[in-house]
């Protein structure tokens, strides 16, 4: 591990220097394996948060943002114990379905990203990749989060949205909205998906990531809103052992 950044009270970004890293696509994940001295090992999948390397000096680093789970086997180690310089066993990059490829055939289609909690991580890689390659593909992000203290990449999202180059972000707070905002709390619903997403005629590419229940709800709302089910890509993680 090369560096660490705290994102929230319970989430941390770890920057890993991977010699020979072959590069990745935005949306892919890695499997992280921890092995105890007695040989017991546990493996978890974590989405890559960073944009693919651009061949410059940072080309061998991969960033993961890990949400600490109270009863987790792996995430407490990664977020609390792991120190800069410690080795980690990684496998990846993994996955070719839940990816946004700026050089792919659908790269010009407008994109809707729907994030539930730490499901924003692989979607952030897509936002960063869009910026890194200078893409003008319009992106909209619907980001559902418990309360403002749980927001990942809050400052960066504000900065990127203010750049005014086609990224729009809609926040949904399920328990507590920012003080003084007057914004109601609630869950994603049909009206929100319609107003903060794209009309079906625009033929958007859609990516939803979050806990299983959230992703099912998001995909269902999109289909009922007239979107093409074949253009909706989903990635779910469970309460244990999942991507986070």
């Amino acid at each position, binding site marked *: 591990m090369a560096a660490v950044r705290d994102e929230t009270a319970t989430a941390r970004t770890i920057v890993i220097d991977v010699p020979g890293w072959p590069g990745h696509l935005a949306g892919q994940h890695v499997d992280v394996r921890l092995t105890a001295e007695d040989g017991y090992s546990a493996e978890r*999948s974590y989405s890559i948060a960073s944009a693919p390397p651009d061949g410059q000096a940072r080309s061998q680093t991969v960033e993961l943002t890990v949400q600490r789970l109270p009863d987790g086997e792996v995430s407490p180690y990664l977020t609390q114990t792991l120190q800069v310089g410690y080795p980690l066993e990684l496998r990846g990059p993994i996955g070719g379905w839940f990816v946004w490829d700026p050089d792919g055939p659908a790269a010009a289609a407008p994109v809707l990203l729907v994030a539930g909690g730490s499901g924003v991580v692989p979607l952030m890689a897509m936002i960063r990749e869009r910026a890194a390659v200078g893409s003008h593909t319009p992106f909209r992000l619907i980001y559902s989060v418990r309360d403002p203290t749980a927001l990942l990449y809050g400052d960066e999202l504000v900065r990127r949205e203010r750049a005014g180059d086609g990224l729009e972000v809609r926040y949904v707070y399920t328990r507590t909205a920012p003080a003084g905002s007057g914004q109601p709390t609630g869950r994603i619903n049909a009206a929100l998906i319609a107003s903060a997403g794209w009309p079906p005629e625009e033929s958007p590419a859609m990516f939803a990531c979050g806990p299983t229940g959230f992703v099912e709800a998001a995909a269902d709302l999109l289909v009922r809103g007239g979107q093409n089910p074949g253009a909706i890509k989903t990635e779910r993680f*469970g309460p244990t052992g999942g991507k986070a």
Partner: protein
Amino acid sequence: MSDYMDGNMLGGTLGELFSMDVTSATVTCVSCGASWAIAQTRVYPHAPGMVARCPTCDAVLLRLVRGPDRAWLDLRGVTCLQLAMPGA
């Protein structure tokens, strides 16, 4: 019931068995005939090994177990596995 995940998580272990990404490969269900990308299947990781079920009919599509020195891939519920190959 939302104690399942999805086939994106099978990519690591299947990637050891296949020479290409398999999460975007399509499987056709023996039970109901529906076709889904592996990434879209419902995966129950708490069995010994991982069990992928059909999102349409819930039938078992495949089971995957990775041991220290071998892997078992049981494709009992899949009539056809379709992989995109590099074009000519």
